């Protein structure tokens, strides 16, 4: 950083509000597409894994491998095929969400208590209705937990896509680095963190709304012995 320069130049921020808003919008868009597409793919993969157990290991292997590839290297590998496009960015971003999402969707469905499943089948639930009306709602807390982690990770990761010309808050960080100018770098970083925290908070609210039954049960339980007796005590 240039000496004598203050850490944050507020006049620069004031003069670049449009640009900052544009980059923030791009960031939300890049992350949003990645989460939605990632969720759709992970959901389909999870259905296969739940249906065909033998698919679990290969799926974990592939998504796990994707997760370990450094993002820069992945983009570099993809550029010859998909160019400096949003597709390149999204392939990478989506790839990183899959491991967490598949794991939590499959784990969430499997964590549904066996007796609940048995009771549902015994009362005449068909397979698809059992899944949509019983298993999926009960798995929601675990699934949403996975979406939260994937969302935070993705929002952080989107900053890297500026390197392949896709904008986002990473663009501000990039010009900060290139020009030895701390203000845009800080704006980009702070907004990225704030966005992650806000998205996480929003997901918590969504989950609470979707799963009112999983909130800390209000302990209105009465002990069994205090139940009204319907049978007179023996004389």
């Amino acid at each position, binding site marked *: 950083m240039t000496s004598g320069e203050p850490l944050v130049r507020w006049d620069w921020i004031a003069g670049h509000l449009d640009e900052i808003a544009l980059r923030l919008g791009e960031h939300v868009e890049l992350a949003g597409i990645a989460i939605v597409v990632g969720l759709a793919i992970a959901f389909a993969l999870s259905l296969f894994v739940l249906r065909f157990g033998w698919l679990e290991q290969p799926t974990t292997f592939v998504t796990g491998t994707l997760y370990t590839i450094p993002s820069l290297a992945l983009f570099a590998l993809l550029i010859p095929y998909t160019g400096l496009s949003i597709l390149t960015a999204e392939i990478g971003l989506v790839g990183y969400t899959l491991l967490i999402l598949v794991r939590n969707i499959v784990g969430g469905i499997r964590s549904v*208590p066996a*007796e*609940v*499943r*048995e*009771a*549902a*089948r*015994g*009362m*005449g*639930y*068909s397979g698809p*209705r059992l899944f949509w009306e*019983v298993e999926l*709602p*009960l798995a929601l807390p675990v699934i949403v937990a996975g979406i939260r982690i994937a969302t935070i990770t993705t929002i952080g990761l989107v900053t890297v896509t500026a390197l392949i010309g896709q904008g986002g808050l990473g663009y501000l960080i990039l010009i900060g680095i290139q020009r030895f100018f701390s203000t845009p770098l800080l704006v980009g970083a702070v907004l990225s963190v704030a966005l992650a925290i806000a998205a996480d908070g929003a997901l918590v609210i969504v989950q609470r709304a979707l*799963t*009112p*039954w*999983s909130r800390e*049960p*209000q*302990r*209105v*339980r*009465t*002990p*069994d*012995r205090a*139940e*009204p*007796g*319907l*049978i007179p005590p*023996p*004389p």
Partner: protein
Amino acid sequence: MAQRGAIVAFEQVSKRYPGGTTALDQLTLTVPSGEICALVGPSGGGKTTALKTVNRLIEPTSGCVLIDGTDVMSVQAVALRRRIGYVIQNVGLFPHRTVAENVATVPELIGWRHDRIRARVDELLDLVGLDPAKYARRYPAQLSGGERQRVGVARALAAEPPVMLMDEPFAAVDPIVRERLQDEFLRIHERLGMTVLFVTHDIDEAIKMGDRVAVLQAGRLVQYAPPAELLERPANDFVAKFVGADRGLKRLSLIAVADLDLRKVATARVGAPVTRGEDPYVLLLDGDRRPAGWVNLERVRSDVLDASMADPSSPLFTRETRVRDALSALMAKGVRNGVVVDDAGRYEGIVALDDLVSLLGRQG
């Protein structure tokens, strides 16, 4: 809301697993319409397997299960199950649905109209002793174990099934709650008259709940008989051992005090003048003929009987008191006679320890 039962018949039903285990071996038995059949036996005996062949959660390797003459395998599994009530040990309530939504499960599945469902839910919650205003909107996590079991029973009864399957429904609650749930279920059954298959590993529960008891061992039916016959004439050593060495005592729990010939004793009213007869002991009754206790006339010094003279040590029984409970009450108090009263508490007669003991001696 009277509903009728259906005849459930097992015909040579076997279930073998690929590994070579035989869970059920040629089970043949018929449960008459409206009766409770208790399936009892040690674990691995095949009782749960038998139960699940009725709603096709398990499909037999050979043989067939008939409900009112129709082979369950000829009916679509989902449709079949919606007509059969099902209660399991851990209840399996849906945690994400309220009590009312849980009870409404099968009516929703078969597409009842909403107002009909709502009325039915309230009716059922009342039936199982849960106030709809208080419980309908709670989630299962907000209920005690006993309350959950009641909701489980209500849910199974929702669409008025002619057949109900219960797999150790009361095993997970403490003994006091269990006994209350058993009594309430018997009352509900008396009202509704559905056919019930009731799996339990507890012989006392089987004797109490079953109109007939089927004892299963290693997948085979060893004996199928009404409780009294099971206790009186166990088919073999296994059954004798399983029903327990105290089966004589257990049999007394099947007999009510009302089934005995009650003794009559000399009685006297409070406030009556003392008149000595040949029996020095009289039972003192108050103005409403409620027993106050025994008076030994030879020791009475005053001319008029009053309640403070009475010795109230004899336990009181109703006509419905089980003979076994009567016996244990007499022994606990160390007295020879118990007084039987009617619903209003009025004197009906006397049960003597000797009568009970001789009853015990008369059976095997």
